[in-house]
């Protein structure tokens, strides 16, 4: 892509690159943060990034399937957060701890 177009015309690749950066940012959060809740949030960030690329593909390829997938991803993300936070709250109630490194003591 010629550099003059880069800022003047927006296409699929712009959205994809944005989505990729968001995804990688979320991944960095998952890998590097210590607070379990923040890790869950980073997972949400990754899912959002994926959603963005789904919608972008859907738009530029003229198919609805991508948007449906986003719908499903959102549902599953919400389910995941519900269960994840429920587990975190249970652990927090017992141990007053949300550090992810603490969780390795929970193995049986």
């Amino acid at each position, binding site marked *: 892509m010629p550099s003059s177009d880069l800022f003047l015309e927006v296409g699929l690749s712009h959205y994809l690159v944005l989505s990729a950066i968001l995804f990688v940012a979320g991944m960095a959060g998952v890998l590097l943060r210590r607070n379990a809740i923040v890790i869950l949030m980073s997972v949400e960030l990754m899912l959002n990034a994926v959603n963005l690329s789904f919608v972008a593909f859907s738009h530029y390829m003229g198919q609805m399937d991508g948007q449906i997938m986003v*719908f499903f991803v*959102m*549902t599953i993300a*919400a*389910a995941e*957060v*519900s269960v994840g*936070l*429920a587990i975190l*709250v249970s652990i927090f*109630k017992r141990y007053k701890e949300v550090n992810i490194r603490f969780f390795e003591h929970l193995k049986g």
Partner: protein
Amino acid sequence: MPLGGVIFITIFVAIFGVVILFAASLFGTRKYDSVKFESYECGIPVQEKKDTKISVKFYLTAILFILFDIEIIFMYPWATTFRDFIKSGEGGYVFISMLVFLAIFIFGLFWEVKSKALEWE
């Protein structure tokens, strides 16, 4: 383009709020003492620790809200397209599949009520 309008009004309101709060702070009288900065707890001496015991119910409500909210949102596309489906002759199929979905919804709600997850006190 509505999106631009939305962004515009959002920023405008935010700036308006900031400006007006700032302006109000310029005009107000200022007579500070240490008591004034304490948290207001009905006049009794302030407990330093925010020793709040918050019922898990709040968060349980929020979780159930998310789940039911999504189920409701699933009904929106159905609601808009239901008449179109009826016109194209697929109404019965879509109607039944939604009834199944609603049955799941109702079962969930019924279960939550029965399991006393929605009881307060």
